[in-house]
């Protein structure tokens, strides 16, 4: 069981969190096509390596946070540290979301 660096609570066991999937931006529902929407819902990048994902600290501060995790080694680090994101707390922030380009269109 790996640990996740919670910006509010510090490093905590992953079992305190719920995985919310890869950080990605919700397409505009007014213009989205079926293909784009379903890619947003179901097509994960599933990178073997560093990926940015969202977690919900349900057994702690109950905040949604973004974390970078190496899916091969389960190393984790705060999302902001690596990505230079403005706010480590808000997932879907433009910078650092690995799939931002594919879903923004």
């Amino acid at each position, binding site marked *: 069981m790996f640990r996740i660096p919670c910006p509010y609570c510090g490093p905590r066991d992953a079992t305190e969190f719920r995985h919310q999937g890869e950080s990605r931006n919700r397409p505009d*529902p007014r213009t989205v096509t079926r293909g784009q929407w379903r890619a947003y819902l179901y097509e994960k990048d599933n990178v073997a390596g560093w990926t940015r994902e969202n977690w919900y600290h*349900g057994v702690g501060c109950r905040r949604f946070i973004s974390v970078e995790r190496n899916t091969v080694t389960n190393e984790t680090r705060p999302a902001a540290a690596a990505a230079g994101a403005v706010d480590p*707390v808000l997932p879907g922030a433009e910078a650092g979301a690995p799939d931002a380009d594919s879903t923004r269109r």
Partner: protein
Amino acid sequence: MTARVRAARSSRRPAETPFRLPPQPGEVIDRSRLVPFDWDGRRYVGFAGDTITSALAAAGVRTFSRSFKYSRPRGILTASALDPGCTVQVGDEPNVRASARRLAAGMSVVPQNVWPTLRYDLRSVNKVVAPFLTAGFYYKTFMSPRPLWPAYERVLSRFASGGWTSPDAIPSYYDQRFTHPDVLVAGGGPAGMAAAVEAARAGARVLLVEEEHELGGSLRWGGAQELEALGRLRADVAQAGIEVLVDSVVAGRYDDNWISIAQRGLPDVTERLIKARAGILVVAPGLIERPYVFAGNDLPGVMLSTAVRRLIDLYAVAPGSRAVVLSANAEGDAAAADLDRVGVEVVRVLDARRGEDVRRALGRGTLSAVEVADGSRIDCDLLVTATGWTAPTSLLNMAGNQPVWDPLAARFRPGEGLPDTVLATGGIVGDGSVDELVAHGTATGALAAARAGFGSAAVVAPLSPHPHPALFRATTHGFVDFPEDVSSKDVMAAAAEGYDSSELVKRYTTATMGPTQGKLETVNTVAVLAEATGRSIEELGTTVWRPPYAPISLGALAGRVSPPARYSPMQPWHETHSAVPLVAGEWIRPDSYGDPAAEVRAVRSAVGIIDVTPLGKLALHGPDVPNLLAAAYVNKWAKLDVGSVRYGVMCAEDGVILDDGVTGRLGAARYLMSTTSSGAATVWQHLESLLQTEHPDWRVHITPMTTAYASINIAGPRSRELLTRLTDVDLSADAFPYMRVRTGRIADVADCVLWRIGFTGELSYEIHVPASYGLHVWEALLERGRDLGVRPFGVEAQRILRLEKGHLIVAQDTDGLTKAYDAGLGDLVKLDKDDFVGKPELLWQHEDGAQQSLVGLVPVDPSIVPAEGCQIVDGATGILGRITSSRRSPTLDRSICLAYVLKQYAEPDTVVTVRLPDGRRIPATVTPPTHFDPEGARLRG
């Protein structure tokens, strides 16, 4: 053998112990404490500190089990926890490792995997059929024909090694513990003890875990110098304030040094699973002596040099009377010296370093002679081998490290690349004198402490393995895996059949897959494979070691069972009024009070009350609540007046129904949302997700109120009459119409919320009262409504009532694929809203049309209640739908259902076929979902 026969034999005089030696300097037995026990129906006496096998070896017992496939007699090989032939049954406990389990007075030990007895084993017939039990025999013999598998299974289970558990066994107590040491040292030999001491001296909290019963490792069976070092290290450990666990094993290392430890030997606890989050893990398991492969290498009487030294030096037991020793190293020489010292005749020492070798061990049942490579034959009852070492790299492997083959030392050792949080010391790293091992341990301990934040970093001088001859197999074939009965011939056969990688050979032959999980077997298996394929051991590599390192009981993994349970404040009343409990997630609530049908009739004819405290309740505050509601629900919320409630459905982004419930507006910016009982946590998280991630600008605060309120639904034609007696709120139809919310006093309790809604289809009020007054209000309702015929009802009655009314239950009448239009909730979906969760999918479902519809269904034969989940079928194979809810309706006096059917079958009066679980097919008629009072006159009255 029957228990009675065993008992009769037990009463006889205990067996003599002719192999017990005079006191030895390092012995761990307490000769002043005799421990009587039974073995296979006979009485024996050992000393406190003896293991089961050491006490029996003292009495001359040599055979402890029969092997798994060929039923060959097996005895002591390692005299340690790894002893492959010494797994026994102790009382009700199966699979006890007899060479590691200490004696306890009155223990009843019997051999397992012998049928019918240890001495006369019917399965020895397998020796005759051995040619058919070759590599991959499972796959070849038992694969086909498939219909025979049940018969094969019965035969195989008879052969499977393992003991038994009695259904009458007294349940054992298991426990769990969590701990957070700065430094965790796995292995209490010289290097491990030194590392622990140094880390503790630097100020780290240290946990030292040793698999055996006492600290010391190989020092325990050394000479005077080793015993003196042992005493010094033990004293240091005791003074350093280290927590020491013995008879405990580090079973696994997971991400971020999450470490599992199986601890035994606690009073009143069979086994305890410790979950440790360690800052730094120091791996110091030492080395495991490797068996040698030659014909007869499994005969009782063939032993490793470490087994000999353990028996003599720890337990003062002579392992035999006439010994031949095959030695390739100093430890083998020391074993020969030990034997000589205690008076065992050492007939010959074969020096493997000079090319001397054994060819085969001979004997019927036990060893009687050895045939040497030069052709000579020596009578003996003990053959000792010291042909090399295996580094147990499991824990390092689990930390991502790949062991590398060191051809000079003829063993695997840790490779490059360990996480910073994992260190290794001692024999697993390299060889050295006691002082060198202690120095390496000390430096490693200092480094561990420094990395954990204590003291300054230390330099660890390298420790290298000493050269050792590469010895795996003599010129004959023998066993590479004892518990699995896999021989070197099997490995070669597997290679010839094309299974030519370590991992393939492992799975095909099952070599290394037995209880010792390759600790004795892997290197020999790979070496024989290398020989067979003409490749090197480096090239083939070892198999991957996975947790657990040592066996853990299932009881320890399950731990102490203490699931959280939630009860409403009315639980004391339920308990004293014969409520039948229903486990609903974490909640325990009344399913009924004994007669659900009567409860239904009471609600339809008079009034009933149900405890609905588990309903999820969220207080929403803030000016942007309407925005949140509009985003979360599929329907509209902008025009909800103060004092109104509205039913809403939430879908996920894939359009699938997530939850439903009503939300009421209590004040300008005050709302109370209710969710399903099981959906409370999910909905809360869902709303927080919207607020935190999509709309951080919205000003809404969510407060969970589920357990702050006790909730009661008062339902039935006389519910208004009952509640009027208890509240100051005007309940008249004009003042408080359907789908309205009011606040006020109930039974003198202030700050209650009342909403007029109706899941049951009757005139009803759902009241939420401060939780501490829940029981008071509940009792007041029953007391004041006695003359009205008030009756409590449970979840079962409520399910019948709502089914009569055709109200769906999310997750009962919907599943992970049900979108809003499937469930007949399309009218609620407001596609003209700008956006809401799931809108794109619902828009497309609306455009395409739903494929299925939720309908009512009544079997033509009203007495048949089809089980929930029954398929609606067409001909032999076509599936047209399924039943999601079914009950007998006391009101309509017939069976009623809710079901999904394909759209073209959804018209009322369509007759469809339902397939029952017993295969019968019955006709049923499609109806609207509402079976009772479709106009809703009762509800709105």
